[in-house]
């Protein structure tokens, strides 16, 4: 067992435990924190895969911005007391879990099968790390149009949020 395998098991286990906690904690704040833990473990997995830039962006965007936004909203609405009521019945829950397990089996089946198809290239390119330079070059040449579209999406989101929230405050006044 080499260092990479140990780290993979560690990060994988942490991310799975975190993901399960997200859906099992009653209180949204604990769920949000578990999700942060999961994201962190995933950043670790990205480092293992040699994707340092993606790992850093994962922490900056998900842990540093998106989850803080979640926490902010949970605290702002003070949702703690409201979330306690209204879980769905045990029958439906059991049905959902069975569906989930079926989906998992399906996913694992596809994953293993497709992995053996692409495993040809695995031998020679298993240890390469991608630099930020490579990603930037690809982003600004081949994927320039999607990149610009992404910026438009962000702009639309920005305007959308302002419209959504602004109208509220004017009605109240």
């Amino acid at each position, binding site marked *: 067992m080499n260092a990479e395998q140990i780290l993979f098991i560690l990060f994988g286990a942490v991310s799975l435990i975190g993901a399960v906690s997200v859906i099992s904690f009653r209180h949204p704040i604990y769920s949000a924190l578990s999700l942060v833990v999961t994201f962190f473990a995933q950043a670790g997995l990205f480092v293992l895969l040699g994707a*340092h830039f993606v790992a850093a962006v994962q922490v*900056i965007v998900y842990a*540093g911005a998106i989850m803080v936004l979640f926490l*902010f909203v949970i605290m702002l609405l003070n949702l703690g007391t409201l979330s306690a009521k209204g879980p769905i019945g045990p029958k439906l829950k059991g049905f959902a879990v069975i569906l989930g397990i079926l989906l998992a089996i399906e996913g694992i089946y596809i994953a293993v099968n497709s992995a053996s198809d692409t495993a040809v290239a695995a031998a020679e390119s298993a240890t390469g790390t991608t630099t*930020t330079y490579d990603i930037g070059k690809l982003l600004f040449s081949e994927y320039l149009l999607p990149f610009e579209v992404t910026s438009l999406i962000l702009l639309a989101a920005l305007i959308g949020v302002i419209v959504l929230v602004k109208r509220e405050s004017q009605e109240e006044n």
Partner: protein
Amino acid sequence: MENLPLVLILSSIVKILIIVHLLLVGVMLMIWAERRVSGWMQDRLGPNRVGPQGLLQPVADGLKFMFKEDIIPDHVDKPLYVLAPAMLLVPALIVVAVVPFGSSITLFGHEIPLQIADINIGILYILAITSLGVYGVVLGAWASNNKYSLLGGLRSSAQMISYELTLGLGIIGILMLTSSLSLRTIAIEQGSYPWQWNFLIHFPAFLAFTTAMFAETNRLPFDLAEAEQELVAGYHTEYSSMKFAMFFMAEYMNMIVGSAVTVTLFLGGWHFFGLENVGGPVWSGLISFGIFFVKTAIFLFGFIWVRWTLPRFRYDQLMNFGWKFLLPVALTSVVVTGILWITTNSRLVVGIGNAISAFIVVSIVAGLLVMTTPKPAIQESDSQFAPTALDAVE
């Protein structure tokens, strides 16, 4: 791992130990310096009884914190309440791993860089870890189950998210000119003389970055999260004993690390008029470390200076300043640096262009603000007030 020479492994461990302890001692020194310098600025003495010049005062304070009763109030959310101080302290401690605090020392034929880890995404690592500091504040605030704490936490999270943008944008100009994310490369590229350092080339970005860093460390004039007059002590109102001390230490640690990062990025790192090359392979490394240390200390003095110079912002002023002044300045600096660097390839032109464009942006924003804000009501009430007062006299 197996083929690494023993010297490098040992030196890494020694470096980590030295830096962590230096940081902890630095926090104590910083607390002492803050109180003494504050005293000096206010024409009083400050603590001078414990030890020579009061140097042992932080030790005495620390002992007092340890022996205080560690109260966990009944109404708090216990797991998060205990976790929050650690979540603030740990990011502050691990950021320092990528900061280069000197050139390098050659021992037993191995060149040992004075840096714990020179990773190729150094700056992104710093941005990532500092963005985690907000969790400690927010969770501490929420877990305390106290409205003042919660208000402090909300303020702080909004503030940190807003100013993080400027922090990130301020760096991009440097990245474009250096074309590297490694802090060591950035420090080396700056050269020995002050006029080669980044703070002149990217002067607006430097100002924006420094201001945003003040906001990130929750220092005056940006300490709205713990404004005593409004929120008791803000997010750490309910904390006592060592847990409170951890919040306190994290704040000072953030200041020290922030100064070190600024010195590396903008103020030439360990370079100073070629002094860092004097002496043999060991001495030059130690001298460069000394230069870095002195620069960081001077910058930290600036922190204390600003604290007693500028009053605290109001909350809307804070948001206006962050979004309407700092962000446009940082953004223009990115655009102007990019265009001028590609067209002229000269650092001088980039520097001049940056300064001029920042001046224009600030004037435009200030003009717009003056035009759009409704005339203050003070004049009207003044004119109304004056006759009534006169009437009353009559």
